[in-house]
C-alpha cells in the first residue's frame, strides 16, 4: 500500500499535465471566438488564463473540477440536494443492491449451467443475447413496468445494475466452476460425493480466482447500471441525475465532477473487492 504511493502520484501527476494541456487545446477555439467578437487580442498568458477558467468549457481544467467537488461535498451539508455526497450515496445504495442481486443471479445461473446439461445447452446463448440488448433502450420500459406493478425507488435501479452485472459473473463462474482438473473430480467420484458436496468443497474453492476477477467487473458494471437506471426515473437524484442535468444545461464542470465522483466510487468498491480477494486467497493458502 505504502509502496504504491510514489508510483500513483507520478502517474496522476503526468495525467494532470496532459489534462491541463488538453484543456488549453480544446477550449482555445472558444477563447479566440470570444476575443474576435469583442476585438481583443489573445496572448499566450491570456489564452492559458481563459482556457482554464471558462464557465462552460469543452474540457474543464482539473482545478475547476476540484473546486466544484470541494464546493459540493465539503461545503454542503450531506443532506442537501446540492451535495454530491448525498447523490453518491443514492447511487451507491442502488449499486450495491444491484451488485448483490447480480452476483446471486449470476452464480445461480453458472451453477445451473455447470450442473444441468439442459441449461448448459439452452440458456447460455440467451444469456449472451440478453446482454446485447441496449439497456438504455429498455431501461425506461423496465422502470415503467416495475412502476406499474408498484415497485419504485431503489429496486428498479438495482435491477438494471443486476442486469448488467450478472453477465460477467456467469461467464467467469462457468469457467471457474469448470476449472478443477480431471483428477480432482475423480477423487470426488471415488468418495461418491454428492453434487452439492462437490460444489462446496471443490468447484467453488477452485473458482475463487475467476470469481474475484468477475466480481470486480460486475461491480463496475453495476455502478453503470445504477446510473443508467437513474436517468428514466425522472432524473430525480443520484450521480446519474447530476450527469444528466449537467448535460442539459451545458454544465461541463458539473458533469466532470459527477463523473469523477462515480469513478472514485467504482475505484473504492473495486479496491475493496481486491482486498477481500487478497485476504481470502491468503487464507486459502493460494497466494504463495
Amino acid at each position, binding site marked *: 500500500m505504502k509502496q504504491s504511493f510514489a508510483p500513483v502520484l507520478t502517474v496522476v501527476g503526468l495525467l494532470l499535465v496532459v489534462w491541463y494541456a488538453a484543456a488549453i487545446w480544446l477550449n482555445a477555439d472558444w477563447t479566440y471566438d470570444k476575443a474576435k467578437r469583442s476585438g481583443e487580442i489573445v496572448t499566450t498568458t491570456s489564452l492559458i488564463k481563459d482556457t482554464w477558467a471558462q464557465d462552460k468549457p469543452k474540457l474543464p481544467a482539473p482545478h475547476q473540477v476540484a473546486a466544484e467537488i470541494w464546493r459540493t461535498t465539503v461545503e454542503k451539508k450531506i443532506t442537501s440536494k446540492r451535495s454530491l455526497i448525498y447523490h453518491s450515496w443514492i447511487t451507491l445504495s442502488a449499486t450495491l443492491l444491484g451488485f448483490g442481486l447480480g452476483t446471486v443471479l449470476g452464480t445461480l445461473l453458472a451453477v445451473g449451467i455447470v450442473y444441468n446439461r439442459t441449461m448448459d445447452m439452452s440458456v447460455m446463448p440467451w444469456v449472451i443475447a440478453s446482454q446485447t440488448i441496449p439497456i438504455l433502450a429498455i431501461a425506461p420500459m423496465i422502470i415503467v413496468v416495475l412502476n406499474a406493478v408498484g415497485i419504485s425507488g431503489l429496486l428498479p435501479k438495482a435491477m438494471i445494475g443486476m442486469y448488467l452485472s450478472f453477465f460477467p459473473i456467469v461467464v467467469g463462474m462457468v469457467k471457474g466452476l469448470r476449472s478443477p482438473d480431471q483428477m480432482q473430480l475423480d477423487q470426488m*467420484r471415488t468418495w461418491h460425493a454428492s453434487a452439492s458436496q462437490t460444489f462446496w468443497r471443490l468447484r467453488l*474453492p477452485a473458482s475463487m480466482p475467476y470469481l474475484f476477477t468477475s466480481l470486480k467487473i460486475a461491480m463496475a458494471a453495476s455502478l453503470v447500471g445504477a446510473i443508467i437506471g437513474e436517468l428514466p426515473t425522472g432524473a430525480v437524484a443520484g450521480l446519474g441525475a447530476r450527469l444528466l442535468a449537467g448535460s442539459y444545461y451545458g454544465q461541463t464542470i458539473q458533469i466532470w465532477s459527477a463523473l469523477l465522483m462515480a469513478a472514485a466510487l467504482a475505484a473504492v468498491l473495486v479496491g475493496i473487492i481486491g482486498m477481500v480477494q487478497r485476504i481470502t486467497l491468503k487464507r486459502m493458502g*493460494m497466494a504463495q
Partner: protein
Amino acid sequence: MTLPPVISAKNLSLTFETNDGPVHALKDVSLDIEKGDFVSFIGPSGCGKTTFLRCMADLEQPTGGSITVNCVSAADARMARAYGYVFQAAGLYPWRTIGGNIRLPLEIMGYSKADQAARVARVLELVELSGFEKKFPWQLSGGMQQRASIARALAFDADILLMDEPFGALDEIVRDHLNEQLLRLWARTEKTIAFVTHSIPEAVYLSTKIVVMSPRPGRITDVIESSLPKERPLEIRETPEFLEIAHRVREGLRAGHGDD
C-alpha cells in the same frame, strides 16, 4: 466355502479415442480378485495399470467386457463407497491444509467432528506426518504430499483399497515402514487391496497374487500366486522362496517388454 470374487473383470477392453487415432489401453482383460486378496499389478509404464484400476473404481467406462465389484456394477460399488483410492499423483487440494485434505472424505461421508479429528490424527501418525496438519500442500516435499494422499485414503473405512503407485516417491526406509504398516492393516482388517507398483520386491513382499501386464494393447501376461505365509517380517525378503518369486515376476516382465 467359496465366496464370490470381490472384483471380477471379464474380457475387459478400453480404447481411448485421441486426436491421432485410437489407443488400446486394455484388451480382453479377465481377472478375479477374492475377498482378502492383496493383488499387485506390475508392468511397464503405459501398459494400462492405472486404466484398469480406474475401471474398477468406475472412473473410466470400459468399451468392452464387464466388471463387477462386490457382485454389483462398478458404479453401484462406487456409490456404496466400497473403496478408497490413492491416485498416482498426490492431488491434494491447494486451498486446504494437509489436515483439511485428509478430513475432506470424512466430511463428505458424514463422520462426526470428534471422529474426524481422531482419524486425521491417527492416519497422520501412520504416515509419519504428525505436526504437518496445519501446513498447505505446497509447503511439503513431494514425498510428504504423497504420504498425505495415502493417509487420506486410509482415513475412512472401505473394504477395498485401490492404490496406484502409492509409495513411488518415498525413500526405502519410510517405504519399508509403510509396507509393514499396510500389511498389518490388511491382516487386521481383512481389506481387499489392489496395488500398482513398479518395484518387484515390493510386489512380492506385499501380495498374495501378482498380476504382470504387458503394453499396447494392455493385457495380463501372467498371474503369480504367492506361496509366502501371511505373517511376513521384512527379513523374508532374503529367503530363497521370496527370491524365486521375484525372479518369476522379473521374467514375466521382461517377456512383456517387447522392445528389449
